Every structure is written in C-alpha cells, then in structure tokens.
C-alpha cells in the first residue's frame, strides 16, 4: 500500500510534468497545425539555461528567467523560421523543427559539452516533506506538482478569462474568421508558439533538477510527448492531460515492478521454465519492458481507437 | 441488371451536424439515363446532399442505393467502384501533375489496373487511348503536358469534368459545373456536359437556370433540406409551391445572368 502510494505520487508528479510539455505541443498543433519536433529541445534548453543562471545567481532566478528566455527564443524561431516555411505546408514545418531540434542538440554539445551537468535540487527544497507510512516523501516532488498545477491553472485562466485567450480559442476552430475580424493571427501564432516553448522551458527547469540534465534529455522525452499527444487524441487538451497522467504513472510503476509474463502464466496454472519456447519473451520483467510500454499503448490505441482518448478529428 | 432499376435512389435521407439538421428526409429516384438537376436557394443543402450520395459524409439516417446496390455507409472509393463519379464545386484536381497525368490517373481503376506495380503505365494502350479520348472530349488535348495548376479557371473546370468522366462511370454527379464562369464559358461548358454525358445518368447541382432548363430532363427543388417538388422542367415552371418558395427569385436571376 505504502509502495503504491509513493509510486502514485511519483507517477502523478511526472505525469503533470509531461502535461506541461504536451499541453504546449497540443496548443501549438491545434492552433497552427505545426507539430513542433523541437518542443523537447526547448525543454532541454530550459534546464540548461536554468543551470547556467543558477551558477551565477542561484536556483530561484533560474526558475523565472530561464522559461522566459526559452519563450523569447521560441518566438524568434516562429518569427524568422516557421513563418517562412509555413507556405510550403505542414511537412515543411515539421522538417524545419526537426532540423532545429538537431541543431539545438549540437549547440548544447558545443557550449556545455556532452557530459551530464551538476544541476541539482536547491538546498531549500532538498529533503523530505512528509511521511507516507514509514517512508519519507521528498519535498521537491511536491514542489514540482505545485509548480505544474499552478502553471496549468494560469494557462487555463489565460485561455478562458482573457481577451487574447478567447481569440486563441476562436482561432483554434476558425482561424480565417478570426483573421477576417481584424485580429493579427500571425502575432497570435507567435505568442502561442513562444508560450508553448516557455511552458516546455519551465518543465525543463524543474525536470532537469529532478532527473538529469544532459544532451540526450530531449531525445529521451520527445517521443514520449508525441505518444501522449497521439494517445490523448491530436489537438485535445483534455486528452493530453489524461494521457500524460496515464503514461506518467505507467512509466513510474513499471520500472519498479518485476512481474513477468511467465510468472503470470505460472500462477494461472501453466508450467513454464527456461526450456519453454520463446522463454526470452516470457521472462522479460516489466521493469525491463518499461521503455516499450508507452509505444505499445500508442500502437494499440491506433488499432482499436484511432481517434485517441478524446480526439475529435479522424483524419 | 434490370433496366427498371433506378440509377440512384434516396430513401428518407437525413443529415445533421451536431443539433442542426441540414437534410430533412429526402426521397429521390433517378432513372437510368436521366439528366436530373437539383436546384434550390443557397444553403438548401444541395452540396451536402451530393456529399452524402458520394460518401464524403456519412448519412445520419436513411438509405441510398446506386444501381440496385445499397451504398449507405460506403466509402467514396467503394461508391466510385460501383459506378458513380463526381465533380466538386471548388476545383479539386491534382495541381502538380500534368493534364494528361490527371486524366490518366482517373482512368486507372476503371480499366482494372488497381494497385498494380508490375505494369508500365506508359505502355498501357487502353489507358493512353482512353485518356487521349477524354482530353479530346474536354478540349484540353493541346494542353496535355501543362501542369494542371497553371491552367486557366475554365480549363481547370473542364479538367474537373474530365477527371470525373474518365473512369467511364455510368452515374455522374456534377456540383455546379459552371460556377464562376462567364456567359460564353458557361455555354461551352453546357455543350461539353451534354456531349460527355451521352448515354449516362447525370445528376447535377446548378445555379444557372439557362443551363438547368437547357440540359435537364427532370428537376428537383430542394428548399431547407426538403425536396419540395420533382418533375419535368415544364412541371417545375408551373408548380405553385416552387413558385412561392423559390422561383420568385428565379426570374430576376435568369434575367441577371
């Protein structure tokens, strides 16, 4: 039970972090039709910027400044790059962001080297906050959840309560009409793209400290975020939310469980041993199979429910 | 096939988008070989009806049959293979391909080449002859190697019809074939339609009344998703309900165009 609770907390906090990433990606995708391949690179840049700032002024300045920097970079990318290739269609945009992701990774190599950075949880947040049964629960995990939730509430309020939010919502469904009404749609695009990048940057700031900050962190998390968007349903924020929590919990639970198919079948009364054909498949531990599970869910989803959890369009 | 089987039959076809009902139970029977026009004011649901028949949208309820086959719920390509081809109101062609390529692609399925990756398309005589014949029909033979995207508007409309008839489907649906054309262009298009639909069943949506009354054997009037009348051009002219609902605006329009 105690194990379950701790894992659930970890899963939810990881899931919320993933949602910070997937919400930006989804928003940009549904608004502009652009699938931002470099989204996870913005996440990485958030962590690296925050590290750099923290070496000068400490963690808290990084928490605020790094996402803003990443957001500004995002806007710049939209303004000088994406807008140019927009005329060539969505595949060209995707290629552009792919090239960008490639370039950002190499630039990170160039500036900060290939090794992991000593970017850690600040001392004020280090240590346990409360006890679940007998095991202490780290304060930083709770902080992560707090940041994610407050940020998401802020985004939600922006989308539903402000004028620009309402325009964005209208532009989601009827971009031409919104443009015809005299709103500057390209500027909205730029703002949303920058906002999505800033969200990803913030996720990087808090995620980088919790996990690891190295040049492969973008590649490690990027495909997972794509899986979330597909599983949740392309363009659905609610779907992305549930899929983020699902994948977050799934990954957290599966890495700590040693269940095997062989064990399951044995309890069901089959006799299994190393001589059974395909033993290497039956004896894979769940923890070993953990990296594959999100993709497996995606494939199953595509076969049985191609729209995704809450998707509306079925192209 | 029994000659009495209608080319197309709609039974209580309904369509709603969300809570809005666009088509309120349309019944329509079109005999084989008939040239049938659907007229009606803007927003009456004419294009929606076409999209339902050709399988672009699924119907909400009701049945549609094509030459005796029930095609309710079929995909566009299944319906096309059963012998129905359509054109679009907004030109829908392969812009990056040449005129010849456009037509050639449209002939491939009906000539039985399917997904073949063992025939060399340039060596298929039947494909070439049929494509050239169609290009001759639509008057684009001299433009065969021009990229479709750079054709003039009227030429693109002709190509649109060419793609539609290239598969030799017995039932043809034309969605406002003369939309946006000048008077002379429309007259040419009308002659073209008359020529290429020889011996086929034609169902068309058209706003230009001179085209409608010049071409159609029968006319149906669609108003707010309901078919309020169906009959020969003379009957439609004389129909009081039509006069009231629609033709009141028809006479000025005929004079204007």
């Amino acid at each position: 039970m105690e194990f379950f609770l701790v894992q659930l907390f970890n899963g939810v906090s990881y899931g919320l972090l993933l949602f910070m990433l997937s919400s930006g990606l989804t928003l940009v995708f549904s608004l502009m039709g652009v699938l931002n391949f470099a989204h996870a690179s913005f996440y990485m840049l958030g962590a690296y910027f925050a590290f750099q700032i923290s070496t000068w002024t400490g963690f808290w300045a990084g928490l605020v400044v790094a996402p803003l920097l990443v957001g500004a970079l995002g806007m710049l990318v939209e303004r000088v790059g994406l807008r140019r290739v927009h005329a060539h269609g969505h595949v060209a945009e995707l290629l552009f962001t792919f090239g960008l992701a490639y370039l950002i990774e190499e630039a990170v190599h160039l500036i900060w080297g290939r090794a992991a950075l000593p970017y850690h949880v600040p001392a004020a947040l280090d240590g346990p906050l409360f006890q679940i049964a007998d095991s202490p629960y780290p304060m930083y995990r709770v902080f992560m959840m707090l940041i994610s939730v407050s940020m998401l509430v802020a985004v939600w309020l922006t989308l539903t309560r402000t004028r620009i939010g309402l325009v964005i919502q209208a532009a989601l469904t009827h971009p031409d009409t919104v443009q015809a009404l005299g709103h500057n749609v390209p500027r909205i695009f730029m703002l949303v793209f920058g906002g999505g990048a800033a969200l990803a940057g913030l996720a990087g700031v808090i995620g980088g400290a919790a996990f690891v900050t190295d040049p492969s962190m973008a590649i490690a998390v990027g495909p997972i975020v794509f899986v979330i968007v597909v599983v949740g349903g392309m363009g659905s924020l609610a779907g992305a939310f549930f899929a983020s929590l699902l994948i977050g919990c799934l990954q957290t639970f599966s890495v700590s469980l040693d269940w095997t198919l062989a064990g399951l079948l044995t309890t069901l009364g089959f006799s299994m041993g190393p001589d059974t054909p395909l033993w290497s498949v039956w004896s894979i531990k769940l923890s070993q199979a953990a990296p594959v599970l999100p993709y497996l869910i995606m494939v199953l989803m595509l076969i049985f429910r191609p729209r995704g959890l809450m998707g509306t369009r079925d192209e | 096939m029994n000659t009495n089987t209608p080319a197309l039959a709609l039974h209580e076809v309904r369509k709603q988008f969300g809570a809005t009902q666009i088509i309120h139970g349309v019944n329509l029977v079109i005999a084989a070989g008939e040239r049938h026009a659907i007229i009606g004011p803007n927003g009456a649901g004419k294009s929606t009806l076409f999209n339902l028949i050709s399988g672009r949208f699924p119907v909400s309820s009701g049945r549609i049959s094509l030459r005796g086959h029930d095609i309710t719920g079929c995909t566009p390509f299944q319906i096309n293979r059963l012998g129905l081809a359509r054109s679009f109101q907004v030109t829908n062609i392969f812009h990056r391909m040449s005129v010849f390529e456009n037509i050639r692609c449209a002939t491939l399925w009906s000539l039985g080449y399917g997904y073949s990756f063992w025939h060399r398309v340039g060596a298929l005589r039947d494909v070439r002859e049929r494509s050239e014949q169609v290009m001759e029909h639509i008057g684009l033979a001299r433009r065969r190697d021009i990229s479709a995207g750079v054709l003039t508007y009227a030429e693109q409309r002709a190509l649109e019809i060419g793609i539609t008839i290239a598969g030799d489907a017995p039932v043809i649906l034309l969605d406002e074939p003369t939309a946006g054309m000048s008077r002379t262009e429309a007259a040419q298009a009308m002659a073209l339609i008359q020529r290429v639909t020889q011996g086929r069943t034609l169902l068309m949506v058209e706003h230009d009344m001179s085209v409608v009354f010049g071409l159609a054997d029968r006319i149906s009037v669609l108003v707010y998703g309901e078919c309020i009348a169906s009959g020969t051009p003379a009957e439609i002219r004389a129909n009081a309900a039509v006069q009231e609902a629609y033709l009141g605006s028809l006479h000025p329009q005929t004079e204007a165009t």
Partner: protein
Amino acid sequence: MNTTLRYRPLNLGRWLLWGTTALIFVLAPLFSDASFALTLLSQMGILIIFSLSYNMLLGQSGMLSFGHAVYSGLGAYIAVHALNFIGKGTLHFPVSLLPLIGGCAGLVFGSIFGYVTTKKSGTTFAMISLGIGEMVFACVLMFPGFFGGEGGITTNRVVGSAVLGVTYGPAIQVYYLIAAWAFICMIAMFALTQTPLGRMANAVRDNPERAEFIGYNTQRVRYIQLMLSAFFAGVAGSLSCINYEIVSAENVSAIRSGGVLIATFIGGVGLFFGPILGAILFTLFAIALSSFTKAWLLYLGLFFLLMVLYAPGGVAWLVAIQLPVLRARRLTDLLWPYSLAILAAAVCVIGLVGSVEMLYHAALESGGDRHIQWFGLNVDVRTPTPWLVTSALLLCGGLATRYAMQFVQRRWDTIQLALRQVAT
C-alpha cells in the same frame, strides 16, 4: 516551381543516362586505390539505395517518416543471422543474394508496422513512425539473445564456396556487390514510379481526397508503397551487414532514421535522382568532414536547416532550375552574381567555422591545450583577437551574402521573364 512532366517514349537519352550511371559504378574505384576511397564508395552505394527507398515515402507519397531505419535495421538483423547460418553450414544460400533475404524481412516488417502507421497521413504519420522507431529500438535492447544487446551481432562474410573466385574477402569485391545491387535497385525503384501504383502514390500525395473519388483507397496506396519501400530498405540493410560484418542497435536507431531523412532532403525529394545526389553529399559530409572536425553534425544540421528555409527542393532542384537557363544560353549572365554570392558565402562560412571550432575547442578540450593550429596559424582561444576576427568575418560575410543574393534574385527574375516571353 512548376515542373512539367513530359511524356516521352523510351528514348536514347534515358539509355544513355543509365549507361553512364552503370559506367560510373564500374569505374569509380579505379580513380583511387586508397582503401579510404573504397569505404567511401561502398557507403555511398548503400546510402543511395536507402535514401531512394526513403524517397518512395517522402517525395513520392508525401509520407514523412522518422523511423525508416526500422526496416533497414531489422532487415540487417535477419541478414546477419542468415549469414551466420550460412557460415555454420545450416543454410545453403549464395552470399551475393543475401540482400534478397534482408529485403524480404524488410517487406514483412513493413507489412506489420506499416499496417499501423499508414492508417494516418501527414503529421500524424510522422509522429507514429517516430513512435514505432523508438519501440523497435527499445525492443532490440530488450532481447539481447536475438539482437546481441549494445554490442550487436558480428559475422563473417567470407563463407561458403567461392563462386567464380568471388569470396567477398577483399573490399573491392564487396564494393562491386554493393554497386550491382545499387544499380539494380535504382532501376527497379525508377520503374516503380512508372507503374499505376507509382502514379497513384503521387496523386495521393497531391490530393488524397480526389484520389478517393476516382476509386482509390488512399490508405492502401500508402500501405503498399511503404511495404515496397521497406523491401529496398531491407536490401540496403543487408548490404551494410555484409560491408561492416556487424549489426547493432545503432542500425535501427533514430540517428539512422534522421540521417536518411537529412540525406534525402538535401539531395531533393522532388526529382528521382535527388536522393542519389543526397546520398553522395551526405556520405562526403559524414566521412570526409568528420575526420576533420568534431562539429560536423552541427554543420550538417545548419546546412539542412538552410536548405529547408531557402531551397526546399534540395540540391537536385537547384541544379534542375539552371537547365532551362543553360539551354537558353543565359547562364553566363548569372556567372558574375553567382561568383559574388559564392565568395560572400565563403567568407561567412570561414567566419562561422572559425567561431564554432574555437567554441568547441574551448568547451571540450579546455583542460589542456588552448591553442589550435590552423594552416600554420597558431591561434590562442583565450585571447579576444581571433574571436573578433571570426565574428567580423561571419557578420560581414552574412551581410554580403544577403546583398549578393538580392543581386542574384534580380538577375534571375529578369532572365525568367525573358524566357517566358520567348515561350509565349
């Protein structure tokens, strides 16, 4: 960019083109007897097949895949096991035909994964292909029994009895095997573009909706096209298995998938020979440049990004649009603007390369030596002078390139206008 497709019956030009290609394949290794050149050529041959097969998706059917290495990699794994069985004597099969086994494996995996990926098109297809790629990569590491884990599976290509003295011991024999397969695959893939399926793949790329209304199931078109493409990817994979005698997880990795995407795009997706050019350029980049600098990936990424922004048709397109100008004997008008642009770009590149190299040096090897030797120049990366110089070069070069390109554009527009007037 309106390329007009012209109908031509089998003509002399086409025979000449294929003949020259074959001749190049035969003669290429004779120009240099360095083993380095042979490695380069073999790698090019493999990548030519791989990127042509990739372009069956991207260029011909509009499917942007981020997981094409899955098919070449799994094909290579099956091939390496087959080769080991041949070595043990449990399987009797000529090594020369091993790519057929790998190709069939690619076809089988293409039919499995393609069933899922081709359900969608456009952006969604791209995401799913990435997901499938990651899944396969994770699976490869999960089953070390079959896939050999991180280290991969090694093999020995010199097995079975020699046919006509061909043992595949010497690298030159392997090169000719690769060249033969590359040539056959080129012809086969070109022939495929001329079939009903190939034509419809283009139609589905341009306007999927219309394709549905002329009787084609667009999903089926994409699916078959992907399976065929996976076959050729498998052929490329088995050739790399023979060439390197090792197959590892890297063969199915996202890096491979990204590599073939970059190679194909740089070459040009709109023309059949584009990916061939791309494969040659990419190999030169990867092998030649990587021996000079550690920053080659950065340069490659920059080059790719510039192509996406300014020349989305790739190098092949850049070449192709010069042909009408050349034919009209107007290319001389462009010589001067072109030379200016190239000169300016060269200054910019020198500035860029200088800055990047010093950055790399400072970041990666800051512990030891602080000096770089450049063409006899001893540069100290801790002093500001070299940084100022390279930055100035970069900035001035960039500005000059901008102006030169405007010059080129003006001349180009004038010539195009003149050509159009001649045509009408």
